[in-house]
């Protein structure tokens, strides 16, 4: 299609803004604050994506207008920003008395029931078949219910990420969730994980020392690191080791002996349901020698000694920098950042302000070089589309989980590795598929919190409804030949049947856990294009690139996108395509989200 002559000028004007601006190379490693005269729209967009979850062009322009000092102060010192419209988490009320303390395994539950005549608040049947079955059902009920409710907490949190006027509060909470990583699979109690999240939100930008103490006394963490069973006479080192290796100093700054001594100081630290308690009789009150100091230390004193180590401030400042800025960090720069944290007595905000204001943050080495985490990818995509809440389709937890980051499910105590580890060939393709599922919702979508997955549970359910007895209904006859030992075990009928328990527990859970609303994303790209008064396909492509990408694709790739849109619309003139362009625009956005560069922030 030939372009009309009158359209040439706006096209020319649209082009130069395509290249994203970064500060000069010499700004790298320079912590000098940028000048107000350096400030521009691109810097504002960069800041908003890194310190928060991005924004619409209007939101970016608002930040741009403030100038760097005020913009950063507003993001970092956010107490004034109103969050009263954010609703608290809406509980399903699923926790039964008797579930705490929740035994570590199914065999532990049935052993307990055999010994005591009851477990999980439920009595063993006096006679009859499968006398322990109701207890096993309850065990699986809670496993399933807690997991489902945790997914609702994940939705609640992601909705805060997108809607809060304090995006940094949530971004920092996400950092701490990866740093002090606990997962639902081990903790198995959404209430503890919710409590931990609220701790990260409340204290995440405050004082690091206070945060470490709070985390060390947090029931979710105590449960996750088995601290509850660390007792005088024979300490469990897991907790002390991770506190030093992962939470504060990093490897190489202490000895194995220090770990054992610290573990003694933490003995007796435990939780009673949702409360931190110290069991005095189990606490080792004796003298310990830890990092060169000797005394009858308790856990808090050990943390205070850790805070006196220069390695601690360097380690944590470096990790915060890597999260917000870039992966490679020179030892000199790390020392400067560590010194900032120390001089401010571990207050986190001054460090954040220094980073966000620095020339280094806006240098070529920092801008557009960070790979978005899956949760950031999803929330940023929604936010930059202009949505105010997280859609229920596609399922956020499944989608980000498939990309390697499900909230409350970090793979190990080390959290998510981040950086390039977010991307594999498989995951790169999967990221584009996520965008497609948003733009073109699956009309056969089944809510995963209602339709219990797992072929086995479904098979058992169907057979039970057909009236089969439990043994027949639960036997696995899908395989031929020699039976694997684990399947032979599951088929064994004792005083309970685990396959039946797994089915029945799932059934009880969906009755009681509230459903996640399954709205699809309300997107109107045509209105966006009309609102910006875009006249040609080139302008549309450039506008989308600029709105959704921090690093533009190559000129060749851009030309292909324009050619694609021309072909799909049958014209390069938007005024002609006005009435029917929505689907083509969505395809275009899917193609943009499929560009390798789209992953960069």
């Amino acid at each position, binding site marked *: 299609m030939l372009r009309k002559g009158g359209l040439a000028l706006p096209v020319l004007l649209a082009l130069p803004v395509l290249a994203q601006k970064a500060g000069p190379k010499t700004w790298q490693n320079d912590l000098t604050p940028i000048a107000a005269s350096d400030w521009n729209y691109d810097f504002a967009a960069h800041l908003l994506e890194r310190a928060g979850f991005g924004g619409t062009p209007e939101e970016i322009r608002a930040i741009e207008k403030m100038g760097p000092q005020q913009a950063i102060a507003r993001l970092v010192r956010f107490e004034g920003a109103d969050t009263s419209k954010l609703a608290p988490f809406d509980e399903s009320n699923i926790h039964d008395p008797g579930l705490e303390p929740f035994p*570590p*395994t*199914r065999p532990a539950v049935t052993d307990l029931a055999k010994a005591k005549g009851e477990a999980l608040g439920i009595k063993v049947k006096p006679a009859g078949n499968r006398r322990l079955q109701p207890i096993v059902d309850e065990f699986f009920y809670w496993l399933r219910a807690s997991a489902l409710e945790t997914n609702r907490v994940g939705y609640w949190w992601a909705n805060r990420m997108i809607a809060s006027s304090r995006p940094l509060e949530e971004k920092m909470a996400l950092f701490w969730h990866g740093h002090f990583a606990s997962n639902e*699979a081990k903790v198995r109690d959404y209430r503890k994980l919710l409590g931990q999240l609220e701790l990260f939100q409340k204290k995440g930008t405050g004082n690091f020392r206070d945060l470490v103490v709070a985390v060390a006394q947090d029931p979710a963490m105590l449960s996750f690191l*088995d601290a509850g*069973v660390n007792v005088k*006479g024979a300490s*469990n*080192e*897991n907790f002390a080791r991770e506190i030093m*290796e992962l939470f504060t100093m990093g*490897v190489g700054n202490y000895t*194995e002996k220090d770990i054992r001594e610290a573990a003694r100081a933490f003995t007796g630290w435990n939780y009673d349901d949702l409360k931190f308690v110290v069991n005095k009789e189990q606490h080792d009150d004796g003298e310990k020698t830890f990092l060169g100091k000797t005394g009858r230390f308790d856990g808090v004193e050990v943390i205070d000694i850790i805070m006196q180590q220069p390695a601690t401030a360097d380690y944590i400042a470096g990790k915060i920098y890597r999260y917000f800025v870039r992966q490679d960090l020179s030892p000199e720069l790390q020392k400067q950042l560590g010194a900032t944290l120390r001089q401010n007595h571990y207050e986190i905000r001054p460090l954040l302000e220094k980073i966000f204001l620095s020339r280094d943050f806006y240098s*070529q080495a920092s801008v*557009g*070089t*960070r*790979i978005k985490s899956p949760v950031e990818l999803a929330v940023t995509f929604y936010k930059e589309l202009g949505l105010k809440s997280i859609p229920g389709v596609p399922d956020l937890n499944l989608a980000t989980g*498939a990309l390697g980051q499900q909230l409350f499910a970090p*793979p*190990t*105590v*080390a959290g998510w*590795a981040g950086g*390039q*580890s*977010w*991307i*594999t*060939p*498989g*995951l*790169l*393709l*999967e990221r*584009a*598929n996520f965008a497609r599922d948003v733009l073109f919702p699956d009309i056969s979508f089944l809510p995963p919190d209602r339709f219990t997955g797992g072929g086995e549970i479904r098979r058992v359910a169907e057979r039970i409804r057909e009236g089969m007895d439990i043994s027949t209904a639960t036997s696995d006859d899908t*395989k*031929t*030949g*020699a039976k*694997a*030992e*684990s*399947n032979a*075990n*599951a088929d064994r009928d004792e005083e309970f049947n685990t396959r039946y328990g797994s089915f029945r527990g799932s059934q009880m859970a969906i009755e009681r856990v509230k459903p996640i609303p399954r709205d699809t994303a309300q997107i109107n790209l045509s209105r966006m294009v009309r609102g910006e008064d875009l006249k040609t396909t080139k302008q549309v492509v450039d506008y989308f690139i600029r709105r959704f990408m921090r*690093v533009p*694709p*190559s000129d*060749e*790739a851009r030309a*292909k996108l324009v050619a*694609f849109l021309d*072909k*799909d619309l049958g014209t390069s003139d938007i005024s002609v395509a006005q009435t029917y362009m929505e689907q083509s625009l969505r395809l275009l956005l899917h193609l943009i989200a*499929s560009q*390798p*560069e789209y992953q*960069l922030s």
Partner: protein
Amino acid sequence: MTKRFSFSNANRRELLRAGLYGVCVTAGASMPVPVFGQAAAQLASQAKADGKILVVLELSGGNDGLNTLVPYGDDAYYKYRPNLGIKKNEVRKIDDHFGFSGGMAGFERLYKSGKLAIVHGCGYENPSFSHFTSMAYWHTAAPNSGEEYGWVGRLADAMAPEAPPNYVVNIAARQSLAVRSHKHVPVVFDDPNKFTQEKFYQEREILGSVSPDKDGSNPARQFLLDTARSAKDASALVREAWSHYKSPVDYGITGLDLPKVVALIDAGMPTRLYYTSYRNNAFDTHVFQSDTHKRLLTYASDAVSAFLTDLERIGRSDDVVVMIFSEFGRRVPENVNLGTDHGAANLMFVAGKQVKGGQYGTVPSLTKLDAGDNLVHTTDFRKVYATMISGWLGMHDTRTLLNGDFGKFEMFSRTA
């Protein structure tokens, strides 16, 4: 997912062997592809079917070797493990000293049929008790050093310096350091069904091409461009292989990722090195370990033994061995929480039809522990790596690859 045109099974396999299947499939019907050109000959030659395959299985979290292969004939074991020690009558005895944990029927069967090698006392000097540090040492085969590349990645560089596509496969949620390579971009995927770019008809052409961009100024962008190319090379092959895989073999509760490996081997992928793991620090059993640990071992043993059966079924059991390791063993004395803490020396296993089954190395003493109550290693783990590299894969210069000479075991009936 739209289904593309299908080949008969035999045709598909031939094409996969030649590395061409993906090319045709990706291009779809709209673009003519030069199938039988110079590139075809090159691809065919590099995908020679005689290549032996190494599969590495990592048991992450630090598997308790003493409760895996129980030294039931040693009183010291029961002294250190008064509660956790597995009773004589509960182990699956393989001789008058050792027996496997109760659920490991699969390993017992493999051992008794001569397909399982057990290597005792594997470890390294100055062991680290950190999961992440020690695992990195095993991944790089370079304890106490800062090696950037993985041993499997370096091995791939040595075996195939021209770095053909799909030579290294890592089935995982994220890439392991072990496969990090100078030259190869490993194929990393988790769910084969999802290893695909879903596209609409209109998008086929534009999504079927990759721009061959270079970007020296932004390494993150360059990394993404390289990854996009690897994804394009592998995704259709992997997905097709998986969709054609149907096995009657019972892998148990979790097959780990081993059925996927069989699917790819059966489809004739040119992959020589596979890396998989029992994920997420599963074996980190600090508390109440006996039920959990027994279950983990049952699953792992079921999966490995089924893997060998499945390889037999597809007629490739002579070409594949699987090497199994963990980043460390566990402390010899149990802790008060009915669990065990991070330890040092541990067992390694090698399974396969061509493996000369039996026990290798020296059993570490249970009465001469180190100062931290750990087993002292008797075999450097790199000796087992060298055995795989040289004995199995026929790369005889292990000194360069492993930065040292660690010797090797004579572990295979058919030497490379």
